[in-house]
């Protein structure tokens, strides 16, 4: 029954990844809908001729990169360790 032990440890990982992905993609939905329906807001100037629209696009790059690094940190650290433990645990149980 290797799989039950795995499913338990796996649930937390899934929940984390999905909520992170949802939040990032939600941000994109907001920016693109603003571009379609709120052109006045997007063209408000912030610094010089740089407007809110371009600032949000710049922020989107930062969010993508930060999101990728945060994900990689979580995945390389706690989640990979957990997966490894489950695999080792299963292999030990198979041996006798």
């Amino acid at each position, binding site marked *: 029954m290797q799989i039950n032990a795995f499913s338990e440890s796996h649930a937390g990982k899934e929940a984390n990844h999905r909520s992170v992905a949802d939040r990032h993609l939600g941000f*994109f*939905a907001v920016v693109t*809908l603003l571009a379609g329906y709120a052109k006045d807001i997007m063209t408000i100037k912030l610094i*010089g001729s740089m407007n809110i629209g371009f600032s949000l696009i710049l922020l989107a790059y930062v969010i993508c990169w930060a999101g*990728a690094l945060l994900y990689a940190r979580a*995945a390389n650290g706690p989640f990979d360790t957990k997966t490894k433990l489950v695999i080792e645990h299963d292999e030990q149980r198979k041996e006798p």
Partner: protein
Amino acid sequence: MKVLTLVIFFIILALTLVVTYWAAKRTNTASEFYAAGGNLSAKENGFALAGDWMSAAAFLGFTGLTALYGMDGSLYAVSALAAFLLILMVIAEPIRNTGRFTLGDVIAYRMRRPEARLAAVIGTTVVNLAYMIPQMTGAGVLMKLLLGIPYSTAVVFVGIGMVVYVRFGGMIATTWVQIIKAVLLLTTAAVMVVWLLSKVGFNPLNLFSGVEDKYGAQMLAPGNYLKHPLDTFSLALSLIVGTAGLPHIMTRFFTVPDAKTARKSVIWLMFLAGSFFIVTTLIGLAAAIFVGQDQIRAVDKGGNLALPLLAQYLGGGAGTLGGEIFLAVVCAVAFATILAVVAGLTLATSGTIAHDLYVNVIKKGQVSEAGQVRVAKLSTLAVGALAIGFGLLAEGLNVAALVILAIAIAASANFPIILLSLFWRRFNTAGVIGGVAVGGISALGLAYIGPAFMGKDAIFPIVNPTILSMPLGFLGAFVGTWLGGRDMANEQRYDEVLYKAHTGVRTQNEPA
């Protein structure tokens, strides 16, 4: 200038052919042909992925759109980066763990039915051809415009080039061609950005004010290119989920040894391609200021030559030695880009025909190792011939419309079945067929009655059909699953699929 471009291009070509020769000697097994033996490093695969993703559409298209339409071009570019966030978090690792060579492997691993694999073959082939034809057409148009080479000669030349890389060097050659091209492209872009920033006192904000002074604040507003309010959303949705359904991107994850390396290669891609996408905005704005929209339109009304024209300006202008040299370099890199991308597409397409259709569906897996490689090489020739044929027929077709079609089909037919195969217990073979059929047909149909093909008389108002066709693809998958009835053996096997997808460990009942 023509001679100079050709000389630089042939130097790049010679380099890639040497790499192909070297790769050919290392390509003996099916795994080496399709997946470079599965032992590329994260950095190698990351550069190759970036090479795949920084296509001519990005290099020439994003810069051109920004030069002519402002913010919409930047929205295109950032969506192309966001696509990989979804791939990183949801798709890359499970795909690496459940597949061997193709998308068909991933679906068949879950379903264990030839019909499911066949549906994946159709999804893969249609998307790849729809993606390949605009690349070939683009190469033809570009060569004709810049070098005066006839369209058909250029298409045949690109076709032969991609077949040579793939037929002889398989995935190893394709990977290294991508890596070389990625390095060339990033270097060119870096030189260009430093150069253009030196013209505005190294302050990027001056580019924004420069555009405003010359063309008015409207140029910095959204909606100059994408007219319908929902267009931007549908486009971003299409790029984000469609990329996760592109088979030639997916096959890149089979070239690394484990999920961790797959993950790291996406991080490499996101920083390499992302930094390129972000500067396409600066290049586009600079082209609008220094070259001018009228001149960009005069050369190509789609704006695709904004970047080459800016290179010419930065080098010193038309007729000067510096200008001609920089222009020639940029053109040669653009051709190399197209060649590398079509090679990746050719490999993914011949993979699905040889490995999925012939070896697994027709021969039920009973083919020797040498036989598999032979069939793979043979199908490369067939795909090449097909691509050249379609490329010749497609002369004069709107390149952008075909790209929209490819990515919309990927988002609507392939993405739902990949996601549901990996994450939904009750999903079954009938669901796979329903998803591919309904998603694919609705994407094709809606694009055809949309503005990309019908212009002003469009029945469906949104250029990119994904906003409707992707939900329809999911609906097709759900209805198919429901009609197919419950498949208890398949549902019980789902635990195994999930375990394999997240650990990469082979389970006992798994077929070889």
